[in-house]
């Protein structure tokens, strides 16, 4: 049996390298996305419970803490989405003959789709 030495992996391994840190921040932003979705589910429940519960929920939404949370969640979701959009050319390779098509052709449609859907949702939400 070999006496090979196994080096322990420290809990702070991800602090040692800027790319590891970037990875961890990207993954951590998912926590904000999850928290937002939980709030959103609660919102749906209050909506279904009747006008009183719904209005009480709206009042809570206008508190400064709620504003800070939603702003942070929006920033986190935008960061999370853009990091994945930018990685699209890694996962999807489209070739024209022997050459790969430029990365921008794969990245840009994501942003265009994102913007289009956001505008449509905004228009529906403000329709009156």
């Amino acid at each position, binding site marked *: 049996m070999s006496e*090979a030495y196994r080096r322990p992996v420290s809990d702070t391994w991800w602090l040692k390298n800027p790319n*590891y840190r970037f990875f961890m921040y990207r993954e951590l932003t998912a926590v904000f996305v999850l928290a937002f979705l939980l709030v959103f589910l609660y919102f749906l429940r209050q909506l279904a419970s009747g006008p009183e519960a719904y209005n009480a929920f709206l009042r809570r939404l206008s508190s400064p803490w709620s504003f800070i949370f939603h702003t942070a969640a929006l920033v986190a979701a935008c960061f999370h989405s853009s990091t994945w959009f930018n990685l699209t050319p890694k996962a999807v390779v489209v070739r024209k003959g022997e050459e790969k098509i430029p990365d921008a052709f794969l990245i840009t449609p994501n942003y265009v789709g994102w913007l289009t859907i956001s505008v449509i949702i905004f228009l529906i939400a403000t329709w009156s």
Partner: protein
Amino acid sequence: MAERTITLEVFRYRPGTDKEPVFQNYTVPFRDDWVVLDALNYLKDQVDGSISYRWSCRMGVCGSCGMMVNGTPKLTCAAFLKDYYPGPVRVEPLANFPVERDLIVNITDFAHKLKEVKPFIIRREEKPVSEGEYLQSPAELATFKQFSMCINCLLCYAACPIYGLESSFVGPAAIALAQRYNLDSRDQGQEERHDVIFRHEGIWECTFVGECSEVCPKDVDPAGAIQQAKVGGALDLVKSMLMPRGAR
């Protein structure tokens, strides 16, 4: 003018003698055209013959001189001392592998995984030599050529935190090589590689840190290979649900 020097902090582990690894400092002459491997060879020849490490070609082809240089996986034959001047330069064995002695790691685990992905062309039936070679267009070659550049140096495994935490992960190079053969128009072995690639310890263990592709000295982009395999696997699953068997 006094000769310029640079300090190397070399990871030492002598099984049977050392319980824990120690760092030993050596001073070597600094030369613009020296790489870390030249400094190690100087030490071994002139200063301390007991230092153990692997090397062979000195030109980035054999893939045997990979070590951690100041914490980053590098081929030491391509890591110039001038990029680390004034030093010190910390030289350690590749991370995530058990250390046999000094800078030598045990790569049995990778050798086993490499064998598992069957990195060779598999034909259901070989055609006779009289029918000629298997032809391939430049466009077909382009689909996998990048992945075929792998020299098994294992810098990608040393860079992969997932492999460090879960050594059952098949890992970057082995999956990139499986993808290399899966994409080869002459190959018919996808099903034989399927279980190794698509099991939990295969592509789905990868969380796309991406550092494997950053450190790869041959621009193989194993992170890309793994994500492409994920997309391919997901599409196959959808196809298998939508289409009757045999139509795929």
